[in-house]
């Protein structure tokens, strides 16, 4: 295959592999804990940070990171309070972040084409720095999961029971949100804000009905994620269509097929 000889193609595929590992893990955790909406909120809010930092002449991706962590922190703090409007707050942060981002882009003099690539990402322009960041992140994520898998399960499945048994819920929540925020920022560079949510949620939604245990769901989500990413990438390359959206379409079609098979099998058993 001749396209594999290009550096940027090799980089893109390597990023796909590395991102599949972190999105398979983080995605499984958020789907199991039912925090999908929260992740949508954080990723869209970070667009505000992109715009603000771009306006200030600073690194947009740093802005995205700051706002992702901040909004994660605000949402996390609010869930400690006896607030009923938690989901609504996420919705506000979601919309406010996007709006702020667009306002700052508008008032920044000159044309800002590279900001739009943060909405849909550009896997073909990833740098060595991007690759190294994801590698470091994956190493930290994997070792944390390895060491704290058992208390993590209790935290994910039953916060009340975890609190009763001396697990520091606030600390776990903080670390969990921090990992989510960093993963989102790493993914924004290559797949874009709009597609982060889909890449995180589609693989675990495919594997959830097929496996009984979280470790299997995580592992298979990584495999599914890698499959969706690679096949979407090549389809996009040969059809000359945008990569990110094609990846999501492939994932969604696979999700529908798997769920349909599950439904039919259940009906006939």
């Amino acid at each position, binding site marked *: 295959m001749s396209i594999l000889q290009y550096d940027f193609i090799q980089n893109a595929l390597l990023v796909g592999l590395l991102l599949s590992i972190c999105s398979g893990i983080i995605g499984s955790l958020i789907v199991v804990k039912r925090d999908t909406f929260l992740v949508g909120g954080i990723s869209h809010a970070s667009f505000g940070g992109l715009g603000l930092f771009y306006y200030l002449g600073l690194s947009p991706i740093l802005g995205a990171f700051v706002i992702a962590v901040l909004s994660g922190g605000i949402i996390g703090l609010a869930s400690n309070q006896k607030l009923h409007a938690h989901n609504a707050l996420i919705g506000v942060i979601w919309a406010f972040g996007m709006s702020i981002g667009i306002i700052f882009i508008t008032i920044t003099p000159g044309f800002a084409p590279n900001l739009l690539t943060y909405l849909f990402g550009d896997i073909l322009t990833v740098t060595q720095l991007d690759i190294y960041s994801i590698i470091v992140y994956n190493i930290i994520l994997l070792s944390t999961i390895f060491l*704290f898998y058992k*208390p993590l*399960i209790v935290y994910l*499945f*039953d916060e009340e*029971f975890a609190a*009763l048994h001396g697990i520091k819920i606030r600390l776990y929540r903080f670390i969990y949100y921090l990992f989510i925020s960093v993963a989102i920022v790493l993914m924004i560079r290559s797949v874009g804000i709009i597609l982060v949510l889909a890449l995180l949620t589609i693989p675990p939604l495919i594997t959830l009905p097929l496996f*009984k*245990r*979280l470790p299997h769901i995580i592992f298979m989500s990584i495999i599914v994620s890698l499959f969706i990413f690679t096949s979407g990438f090549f389809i996009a390359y040969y059809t000359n269509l945008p990569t990110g959206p094609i990846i999501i379409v492939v994932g969604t079609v696979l999700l529908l097929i798997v769920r349909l098979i599950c439904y039919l099998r259940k009906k006939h058993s």
Partner: protein
Amino acid sequence: MNTSVLIDVNDLYFSYDGKNPVLTGVSLPINKNDYLIIMGPNGSGKTTLLKCMLGLLKPDSGSINYHDIQPIDFGYVPQFTTFDRQMPIRVYDFIETGLISRYHPIKNRKNNKSNLINRQIEDFSLHHIAYSAISDISGGELQRTLLARALVQDPKILFLDEPTTFIDSESKNNLSSILQELNKTIAIVMITHDTSAVTDHVKNIACVNRNLYYHGRDEHLDKSLEKVYGCPIELIGHGLPHRVLKEHK
């Protein structure tokens, strides 16, 4: 202080929003080897009281004193409704989560806990479903799994929140004989609005509806239940004399 008291609740006030009190001036002792039932209608603050005793909620005022007992000695069986049944975990692994307070990420990753878990699986006859997902088992089986998780670390006191709500009468009888057996060694505190959960093994009954009307086992119980539920109510349970219902006003 009476040495046989495990938990001593004193003049407890609690509200979720700082304005509308859920519990007002509740005082209640829990004794060693107690079998206490806390009754009251929905929304009466039973679960709130339980969560205060467990240390999961912080009261506005009043105190809870623990004697010779720590949170690690609490076994807790939560309400079915607050519990996510769709989680991808097997019965065996789920029971293991009851031992989480003994876990250390480096020191005892692999200490031999399987005999503790297997003992619970045996006690509650869960062999056939030990490796099934939580989502694939019946209500009665989930009930026993929740009990096994609460008991696997040998608690000194067992708290149960509405344990009879979603199980059939056979499982209910099963549960009551399990609790009777357990009560020989540990204290039991059960929250319920189900008056049929009161059996003759129950040692104390408390009725909650914001305030608390505490009883030993005495003959004035129906008066307090009437106050709490707002209408005459009759206890019908095993070992209790059945009485004719008073006219409902």
